[in-house]
């Protein structure tokens, strides 16, 4: 269905508005947090129309929002955030994405970059050999069928029991690495079949396991609380729920499409298929989505565990002598009930974040105790060649974005455009010339994912900081990584 173009107006620094009155079907305004440069980069991108489309959904509270890394998605734009009234609102798989709980975890070490420079190539090659990557990869964590059910039900707690993370690691994860209310009874045989062997595997596309070095500290006090120091070696894992989550979304889109018709919800885009939060259909999807979220946490923790084994081995140290610590683990694709201020009153709303990171300020009860005095770590991965960032949640996020911040650099060019720009071998060589060693399973991945196909993550971070969604703490530069 062709969508009417939404009217866009500048609404102050870092802010573009799509007024509700610009389209008859919008229930609220759309707000996009952008600077002029990022706005200009949207060009023919249809994501502003998608922001407007989200504003048509029943029970939306506040505005339909887009983070500075926004770009075209399915249903919601990537970078889209919207909150829905607990009893009058809807839940939409298109507001979560196919890769349910795609996200990032960051592990710090006590090791300085100088110590890793020598064995770096061996480290990356061994990571590549040990962590299953690429299309159809499997076998990162072998589980029995009863154990698989426990993964879906208990998320990070299963990882603790299996010994792939420490007992206190879940304390440093969003939702402590498990969403309550997951119901494996809502999971199809197909989703189980697609995901059963994929625990602890990276997958393909933009997912990565990357060795990074803390290059700049922007906030000494907060960096200290997060355990970060200049020159420190860290590891970032970016992955999600793999085929399991994709199939959960695939299974439920027709269910939600029928539900939308049943409840008389008119959709500007069928990918926004949704059901009332209080409906049986909505609750079934929510319970299945939670299973996929729990799967994703175990998936990321398992790859992190593999990386820790490899790192200790290559550095010839015992695990306990490496100073490993989980800085944090964040979801980028999720729907959750949270308490937020709506029109000045506390309300329980269902926040959809699709390509956005939760961002909570100091003192918020959901921030881990270890960080509560400073705020929640906000992890923003960049591209293979530039930087990733650690930020900290700011109070403005609660008033501006339902406690949300950007989740990455944001795609600028298509995969095909990347292929035309440079071949994978050239990308590998150019990165190597800058001291960045990359390995990828699929021939075209490096070309399709080269830094130039992404926006500059520094611009995204600058806007997030400008709006006050999150404050920069540390800039991390990549020194090597593996991709699918």
């Amino acid at each position: 269905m062709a969508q009417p173009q939404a009217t866009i107006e500048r609404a102050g620094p870092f802010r573009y508005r799509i007024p509700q009155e610009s389209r008859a079907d919008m229930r609220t305004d759309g707000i996009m947090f952008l600077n002029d440069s990022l706005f200009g980069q949207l060009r023919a991108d249809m994501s502003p129309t998608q922001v407007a489309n989200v504003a048509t959904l029943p029970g939306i509270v506040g505005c339909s929002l887009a983070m500075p890394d926004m770009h075209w998605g399915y249903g919601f734009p990537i970078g889209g955030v919207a909150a829905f009234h607990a009893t009058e609102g809807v839940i939409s798989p298109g507001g979560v994405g196919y890769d349910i709980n795609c996200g990032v975890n960051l592990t710090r070490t006590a090791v300085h970059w100088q110590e890793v420079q020598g064995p770096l190539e061996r480290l990356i090659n061994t990571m590549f050999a040990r962590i299953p990557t690429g299309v159809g990869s499997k076998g990162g964590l072998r589980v029995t069928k009863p154990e698989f059910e426990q993964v879906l039900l208990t998320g990070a707690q299963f990882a603790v029991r299996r010994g792939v993370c420490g007992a206190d690691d879940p304390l440093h994860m969003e939702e402590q690495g498990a969403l309550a209310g997951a119901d494996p009874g809502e999971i199809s045989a197909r989703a189980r079949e697609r995901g059963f062997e994929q625990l602890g595997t990276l997958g393909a596309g933009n997912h990565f396991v990357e060795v990074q070095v803390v290059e700049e500290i922007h906030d000494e006090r907060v960096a200290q609380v997060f355990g970060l120091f200049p020159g420190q070696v860290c590891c970032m894992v970016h992955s999600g729920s793999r085929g399991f989550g994709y199939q959960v979304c695939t299974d439920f889109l027709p269910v939600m499409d029928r539900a939308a018709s049943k409840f008389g919800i008119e959709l500007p885009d069928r990918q926004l298929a949704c059901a009332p939060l209080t409906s049986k259909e909505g609750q079934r999807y929510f319970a299945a989505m939670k299973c996929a979220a729990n799967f994703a946490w175990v998936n990321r923790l398992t790859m992190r565990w593999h990386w820790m084994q490899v790192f200790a081995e290559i550095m010839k140290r015992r695990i306990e002598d490496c100073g490993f610590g989980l800085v944090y683990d964040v979801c980028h694709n999720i729907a959750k009930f949270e308490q937020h201020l709506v029109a000045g009153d506390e309300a329980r709303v269902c926040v959809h974040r699709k390509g956005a990171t939760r961002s909570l300020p100091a003192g918020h009860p959901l921030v881990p105790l270890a960080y509560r005095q400073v705020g929640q770590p906000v992890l923003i991965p960049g591209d293979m060649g530039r930087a990733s960032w650690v930020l900290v949640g700011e109070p403005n996020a609660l008033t501006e974005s339902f406690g949300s911040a950007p989740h990455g650099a944001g795609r600028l060019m298509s995969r095909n455009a990347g292929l035309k720009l440079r071949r994978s071998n050239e990308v590998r060589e150019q990165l190597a010339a800058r001291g960045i060693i990359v390995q990828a399973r699929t021939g075209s991945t490096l070309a399709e994912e080269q830094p130039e196909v992404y926006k500059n993550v520094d611009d995204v971070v600058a806007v997030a900081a400008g709006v006050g969604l999150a404050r920069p703490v540390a800039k991390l530069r990549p020194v090597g990584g593996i991709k699918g």
Partner: protein
Amino acid sequence: MIDKRFRAVDHSGDLAVEAWGADELEALANASLGLVAQLVPLDTIEEREQFPLWIADEDVDRRMIAYLNEIIYLISARRWLPCSVKYMTNCNSKDCNELQVVLGGEPLDPTRHELKYDVKAVTYHGFRVTKETGMVKIYFVCDL
């Protein structure tokens, strides 16, 4: 018989495919082959086995998308590669809304087949069936 059965279309983030046929069913059969062809060259797949499918849904577009997603499932979970559509029919009556298909193909052989992409799904977004110069065209977008 048509010259061009399908083609990949450049897309901002992912993968879009257009497929043509003399009628809707032929276009859908070609769409499924076009989808497979984006992942692995069709001429590397041998027709050693047949695989029957039944897709029931009262909504025609949903049924077609479900069929294309069944192809994704076959490749991703069953590790089985289709290379031909041997039979395809729509049972459209008051009591029956079923697409019945028999695919030809073979199990994925890692020594001969390397999948180019990990396709998450065929999306509803932008899915359309149109008529152009006497042909039926199906356009769909995959999330990678």
